């Protein structure tokens, strides 16, 4: 599902104006700009959901069940329990986005640390960390996530653990290969010769050069993570009703697939939009940073 190799940028990142250059290139790419706008709108509307709607996402009225979109008072209609769809989609974004983004951040932190240590220290440390990574790679990611979450039982924390465990190995591989590339460069040798300690070299020379490409790589994982976390909720391993979440909404609305197909498919549009935007933005960032 994921490609675990990155190319380091060809020009030095510390050079003056590098980031403003990347930003300028990104702003010139219409697709990337569109993605940033879509993501900003979805994220902001999830954060400010209470200001945008007067309905309660958990309370509905039975007489108003499955009203079609544009019904009086319900812009996007109502769900199978008569709750306002727009409200639930806005609030649902909170859980879906958190459960998609948080595992990637945790994996970036844990996997990045393990990968840097493996690449910098080398030897047995490297062998142990990388072989352990291989074992997790022996499982298709969604299967391992289902296995862990399925064994631990449903619940948000268990889903979070499952997703993080699955996302750590690609982060370790990418960080390790980038660290190994940088470690053998002349300026690291020079720093060591002039008496710099290991931690200083990691902080200044290694992280200074690999952090940005690795964060860009992590953005491509965001797309996978959003799909997987909503997928876990879809099969009942994650968010529990009545909390709104896009994957869970897709599942509970399956009963409405014949009566209100448009409403039944609506939550997936948001998962797709977010996942597509993260993927395209990651592509755009890569080419803006000369990493493709």
């Amino acid at each position, binding site marked *: *599902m994921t490609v675990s190799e990155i190319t380091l940028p060809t020009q030095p990142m510390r050079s003056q104006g590098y980031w403003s250059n990347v930003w300028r290139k990104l702003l010139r790419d219409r697709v990337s700009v569109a993605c940033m706008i879509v993501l900003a709108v979805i994220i902001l509307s999830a954060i400010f959901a209470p200001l945008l709607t007067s309905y309660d996402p958990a309370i509905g009225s039975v007489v108003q069940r499955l009203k079609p979109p544009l019904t009086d008072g319900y812009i996007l209609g109502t769900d199978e329990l008569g709750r306002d769809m727009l409200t639930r989609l806005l609030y649902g974004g909170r859980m879906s986005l958190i459960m998609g983004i948080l595992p990637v951040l945790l994996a970036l932190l844990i996997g990045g640390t393990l990968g840097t240590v493996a690449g910098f220290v080398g030897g047995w440390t490297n062998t142990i960390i990388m072989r352990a990574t*291989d*074992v997790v790679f*022996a*499982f*298709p990611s*969604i*299967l391992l996530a*289902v*296995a*862990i979450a*399925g*064994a*631990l*039982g*449903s619940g948000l924390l268990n889903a979070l653990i499952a997703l993080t465990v699955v996302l750590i190995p690609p982060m370790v591989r990418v960080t390790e290969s980038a660290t190994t590339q940088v470690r053998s460069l002349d300026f690291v040798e020079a720093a060591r010769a002039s008496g710099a300690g290991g931690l200083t070299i990691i902080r200044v020379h290694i992280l200074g050069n690999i952090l940005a490409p690795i964060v860009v790589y992590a953005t491509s994982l965001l*797309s996978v993570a959003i*799909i997987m976390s*909503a*997928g876990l909720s*879809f*099969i*009942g*391993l994650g968010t529990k009703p009545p909390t709104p979440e896009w*994957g869970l909404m*897709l599942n509970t609305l*399956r009963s409405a*697939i*014949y009566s209100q*197909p448009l409403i*039944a*498919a609506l*939550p*997936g*549009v948001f*998962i*797709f939009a977010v*996942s*597509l935007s*993260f*993927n*395209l933005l990651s*592509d755009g960032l890569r080419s803006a940073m000369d990493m493709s």
Partner: protein
Amino acid sequence: MLGYILKRLLYAVPVTLAVSIICFSLVQLAPGDPLTVVLPADASQEIVDQTRARYGLDKPLPTQYLLWLSNVLQGDLGTSIASGRSVSSEIGHAIGYTLSVAVLACLLALVAGLALGLVAGYTMGSPMDKIASATAISGVSVPHYWLGIVLVVFFSVKLGWFPAMGAGRSGQSLGDALSFMILPVLTMAAMPAGIITRSVRALVAEKLGQEFVTALRAKGMTSPHIFAHVVKNAAPTALAVIGVQMGYLMAGSILVETVFAWPGTGLLLNNAILTRDIPLLQGTILVLALIFVALNLIVDILQPLFDPRIQRA
């Protein structure tokens, strides 16, 4: 060549063992005493101890693992708590359904991905390329369980062309059986088709810029022949991608099979999760993971046959 194959086979042994250890520990991960599901709540201490001994649960974990492993090697994956049938027969019944959909989805993805990728790579930057690339990234980004729902809404609810759920009755005609498979296959093919398109596109663009193509052109070779060379160069990558994707498809089918109530291993997993049937969960995960390991191994072994340059590592 033989040395390479042996090396790959040897490397697969520790990986397989590690996979089995992880699957074994799934039971340890599950909260609660595994005995509570087989015994009545008011069972006497004596019976509890007897049952514990019978299942080997009174022994230390490494011994338990070896016991479990020797059972697994004899084809005994335990007994499903929900149905009371052996896990291996449950999986044996379901895996054919998963396999047939996965194989068809892979074939479809291979054909569609190669075609789109070649078109996009050859016409880099043109509107054709833009359309093919947009299709590909949509395929990679789409939540397939949602795509399944959309296809059901469109083809089953609106048009009434294909059945929305299940696999039909036994003894039905081949045409009927296929009509149940079309929507799951389309759904499952989207992601691998997108991935293959993207890798073939990049590969074709790279090959076209390479010296051997320039040399062929200079020697006066016509475009169709050059095209054949490029396809020959792109095929191993597409095959490697599809091999790995096949494993992802079989494992990832849990979501798609839930949408279509397709009676494969995915639905089995889903039921195991709903009923907290840990032996069934463990056995199914183990079988699917082993298939994934085997497919990766086959890809590794086959690839040098198509592309002799890979004979390294």
